[in-house]
């Protein structure tokens, strides 16, 4: 029964997925590759800043390269998070638009908090 649905669908949609449809799959991979390096940099930086106090943390964020890398890390992290959490929503609650919307709002909110913090620290 399921097979016949798949055949109907692929016969109808084949031309579409031939041109696109790999976009999200590729985005998952490229964000993974970027985050592999960015999170290792973040772990290394966290090691350096551990127990060094507020002034050291502020000085770290005020370095333009660090601020830029932090911002990039958060943009890519929340994009990756959005796709990952959406995979969970689609697997366990396939028809819930509400959860997909909440996921988007959550990821945008965390990104806004991080970028806002970087901006305030960098400007101060």
């Amino acid at each position, binding site marked *: 029964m399921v097979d016949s649905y798949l055949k109907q669908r692929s016969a109808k949609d084949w031309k579409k997925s031939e041109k696109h449809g790999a976009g999200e799959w590729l985005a998952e991979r490229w964000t993974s590759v970027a985050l592999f390096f960015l999170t290792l940099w*973040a772990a290394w930086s966290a090691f350096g800043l551990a127990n060094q106090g507020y002034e050291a943390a502020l000085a770290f964020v005020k370095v333009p390269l660090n601020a830029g890398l932090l911002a990039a890390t958060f943009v890519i992290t929340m994009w990756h998070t959005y796709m990952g959490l959406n995979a969970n929503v689609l697997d366990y609650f396939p028809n819930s638009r509400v959860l997909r919307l909440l996921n988007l709002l959550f990821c945008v909110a965390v990104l806004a908090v991080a970028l806002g913090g970087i901006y305030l620290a960098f400007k*101060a």
Partner: protein
Amino acid sequence: MSKPPSTEAAYRPLSPHLQVWKFHITMFTSILHRATGIASVVGAVMVAAWLLAIGLTASGHCPEAYTLFLSFAASPFGLFVWFGLTLAGFIHLTGGLRHLIWDMGLGFKISSANALAWWSLLGGIALTLAFWAVLFATGKVVL
């Protein structure tokens, strides 16, 4: 599925099925990859809160923000949470590497897939333990 699927989402397989698997390492690391990914979201929230605390303190909007952040982040419970987050993060990192290797079409032989699963799991645990061992050894973290 009891009724015929009518939306695009209904064609997706429900995975990973937590109930139907007989234990094997690739099934375990697959489920773990999802679990550690979800756990790492907490890490992103914590680091975002750290950045906001620095920003609010530096800008003068809320001078106590950083102290408030540290009262959680540097507490024994906070350290326990950080340890859990680094464990989840490192296992997700090495697990992601495993997935990228598979995505290149490599390591699909059952013995290779099993070995990759073990190495990524043990590698993630080893990185976490090394990270904290050095933190303690250099006196950056004291209990």
